[in-house]
């Protein structure tokens, strides 16, 4: 088999590898953001916020090279689907990094407030699962592993469950005003992590589309597990 469009296909490979880089950054940022929050480390939180620049640079680079490739190479079939997937995944990963930044900012703002260890452990759990989900989705993407992609929704369930339970958990803290304030902020963090998880599932969704040619939404907001 001869490769007749090496320049084009190299460009595609390059775009993919940039996405893999972004994915790793995003996963690490989630990890670091949650760790900073759990340890109450404001400096570490600030570092997470700074790191977003790296991801944004990658995002812009991928986007502009994507446009150029689209105009110059007229991709079809699997190349076309890959281009569509690259565009979407680029967006989702950038989003995940932004969500990590939100976690970092909330950590900075809630410096000095008391915290509830149960809630903290829930958030830690959510953070662990979400960063694993991001790595898992991107790993499946690199390996073109359909089964790996299909496993993502299942991984998302505990995250959703933990998020839903947050309301009740925070309501428990009603007695102490400062604790309550912290609790409400933690609800935002929980929601943020839940959305990061959804974005990871979206990445897997895109991979399934690439491999099957059929777009199926894995989870729908209107469906409850």
């Amino acid at each position, binding site marked *: 088999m*001869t490769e007749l469009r090496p320049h084009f296909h190299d460009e595609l490979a390059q775009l993919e590898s940039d996405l893999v880089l972004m994915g790793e950054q995003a996963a690490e940022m989630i990890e670091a953001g949650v760790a900073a929050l759990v340890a109450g480390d404001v400096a570490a939180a600030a570092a997470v916020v700074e790191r977003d620049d790296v991801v944004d640079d990658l995002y812009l680079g991928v986007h502009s090279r994507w446009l150029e490739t689209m105009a110059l190479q007229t991709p*079809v*079939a699997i190349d076309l689907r890959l281009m569509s997937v690259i565009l979407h995944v680029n967006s989702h990963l950038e989003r995940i990094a932004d969500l990590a930044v939100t976690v970092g900012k909330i950590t900075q703002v809630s410096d000095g407030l008391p915290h509830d260890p149960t809630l903290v452990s829930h958030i830690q759990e959510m953070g662990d699962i979400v960063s694993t989900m991001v790595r898992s989705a991107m790993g499946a993407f690199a390996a073109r592993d359909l089964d790996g992609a299909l496993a993502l929704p299942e991984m998302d369930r505990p995250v959703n469950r933990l998020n839903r339970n947050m309301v009740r958990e925070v309501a428990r803290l009603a007695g102490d005003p400062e604790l309550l304030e912290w609790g409400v902020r933690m609800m935002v963090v929980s929601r943020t992590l839940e959305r990061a998880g959804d974005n990871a599932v979206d990445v897997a969704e895109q991979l399934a589309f690439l491999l099957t040619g059929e777009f199926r939404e894995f989870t729908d907001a*209107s*469906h409850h597990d």
Partner: protein
Amino acid sequence: MQVLATDVASGPMTVTLGDRSEPAADNPAIFDVDGLNVHYGDFHAVKDVSMGIRKNEITALIGPSGCGKSTVLRCFNRMNDLIEIARVSGSIEYHGVDLYGPEVDPVQVRRHIGMVFQKPNPFPKSIYDNVSFGPKIAGFDGDMDQLVEESLTRAALWDEVKDKLDGSAYALSGGQQQRLCIARAIATSPDVVLMDEPASALDPIATLRIEDLMQGLKEDYSIVIVTHNMQQAARVSDRTAFFTVDVEQTGQRTGVLVEFDETSKIFTNPGEKQTEDYITGRFG
């Protein structure tokens, strides 16, 4: 991407690429090809082709050179008869009639199935005579002026030549000459127009004009086009047939049909790996 009825209760949204909402039942086949084989002497040019060409559609035949797409095209109007050593086996039915039946007159066939060639080849005569020749020898005794005007209008050439119908056809530009050849082909009122790489000798603007013209012609004629330009097939056709060269142990190179489907499907999610490899440029 088309969204089917979003029924919330029915589960997650599923969309398949290349869906077309028109059912196939009301679009009859003009040509029904079954097990078509073409030999030139000992050379097996085309092997076991089976496909159906539908009415009022543009069907594109694509594939690398030597894959037999022009050979298959020329079977539809019996132009292969002109090659002494050509032998056609299998069957091609035209409106249910065997095109190669013993009672069939190839000359009559070519009045119903017109052809436009790769290099524009108008007769060395006036524009008027170019268009009127076919109907004249077919015995047309109606208003020839009107027929010529109608044919030229349908070929999007009338406005440019209406004041110089007696002028030489060779005085026209390449793109105009090709449109003249289209007018000439449709003057005999065929129901099929075969086009063998009609735009490959033309510049990009002239090419786009021909493609635009084809969309209009589709309403009255069924069109089968051979093209080596994949993008053109993608732009212009409703269905695409992908042919390739099968190399046997003997070294003989024979053309075979790999995939035949709706164009949108072929170019977004083809069923065969060979098709995908060819159109994405990973072809060997």
